[in-house]
């Protein structure tokens, strides 16, 4: 199972503890994570299911290539980091 970690900055708004989650792609893994934490989903995705413009996702230190579909594969031992993109200031 991949490890999902969130930026510390989000924690003061909504609790997003690190968790190990199973799934083949970033989208699958995050959907599974947010099923148990719906409030947090709204901080990362907009209501159309799109990754918020100034959020960024890394897989094992590399930025995801498919920001719209989040179809990038994740290995079972992988680590997903959800952070704020510096583009947001």
């Amino acid at each position, binding site marked *: 199972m991949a490890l999902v970690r969130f930026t510390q*900055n*989000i924690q003061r*708004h909504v609790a997003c503890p690190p968790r190990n989650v199973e799934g083949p792609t970033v989208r699958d893994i995050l959907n599974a994570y947010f099923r148990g934490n719906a*409030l947090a989903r*709204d*901080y*990362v995705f*907009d*209501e*159309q299911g*799109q990754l*918020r413009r*100034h*959020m960024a996702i890394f897989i094992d230190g590399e930025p995801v290539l498919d920001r719209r579909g989040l179809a990038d594969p994740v290995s079972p031992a992988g680590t997903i980091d959800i952070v*704020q*993109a510096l583009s*947001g*200031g």
Partner: protein
Amino acid sequence: MSQRLHVATRKGLFTLDRHGARWSITRTSFLGDNCTLVMHDPRPIGGRTRQRRTKFSGQLVAALDHGHFGVKLHRSRDGGATWQPIGTPAYPPKPADYKPRMPAEGAPYEWALKRVWSLAPGGAHQPGRLWCGTLPGGLFRSDDHGDNWEFNRTLWDDPKREEWFGGGAEVPGIHSICVHPTDPDRLVLGISCGGAWITEDGGGSWRCSGPGMRAEYMPAERAFDPNIQDPHLVAQCTAHPDTLWVQHHNGIFRSTDRAAHWTEIQNVKPSAFGFAVAAHPKDPDTAWFVPAIKDEKRIPFGGRVVVNRTTNGGRTFKTLTRGLPQKHAYDLVFRHALDVDESGDRLAFGSTTGSLWVSENGGDSWKSLSQHLPPIYAVCFEKPLVAG
């Protein structure tokens, strides 16, 4: 008169209380966060008994824009001592085959919440009803005090909505919601840039307001098109709700027939440009404005902060300066940053440079409450319930 003022700023929400003749900050909420709007809903929650033990009645709703993390709404039922997150208005899924694009820019229409730009309680006998106007132009209604929001599909699906465009922001937005105090299914919205829109049936059907507004930023052929006007704010006289005032992008307009017609107010000195307008709650002939140099500069004329007041329906204005800085002051007052209380005597306004003033005499004189708050987006007096 109101004894409490809420001030929404770039770095949090500040609450000021009046003790004796002095105002002071008594509470900070969301310190460090971008609080873009605050609303006081005076209607008792769950019957009058539930909140009897506190002086506070009703609820506060604050809009936060967390930037990276999106827009959120929070609610307090104890005057701001504690806050809870509530539902965030959400746009419905954008159809995959939706083709129209924004006029002029040609960009695809946004279908996701960008900003909460207006909040208004429903009628006195509509418990739980709230209205929320947003960028990019969607209107939402709640019937459970903001826990859940319903998207007003009728307005969004009106083909004329696709003619709206951004004014100041990249996308259009609803910044004004005037709820008729005794017939609360009658609403007038202010939209930049979509003019004023009217419903008589609680949002079941809509029409664009009548003629009279003028847009000098458009080609002459379109200047009087009601649907492309840029009212910066629409304000309603509570006691005479057929009287509406508009601070527009290039002028001041007034209606005395609830937006069926608008009349431009001419020869306003030092300027007819500005963002804010406050309508006297009882006197339909009185309103206040905070003028600035139009629109490419957006600073006060001559570095002097002034308030313009008319007491005769716009025939003449008195420029009020007592207590306001008259030298090298560059305060700009945003559209929601001027408010008047239920008496019509007490006003407050705040600026982009963090100055906050209050008047106890209808604007004749002003007192500085702070000169170093964060940039101020909105001020809101706590006001009593208007019986409907």
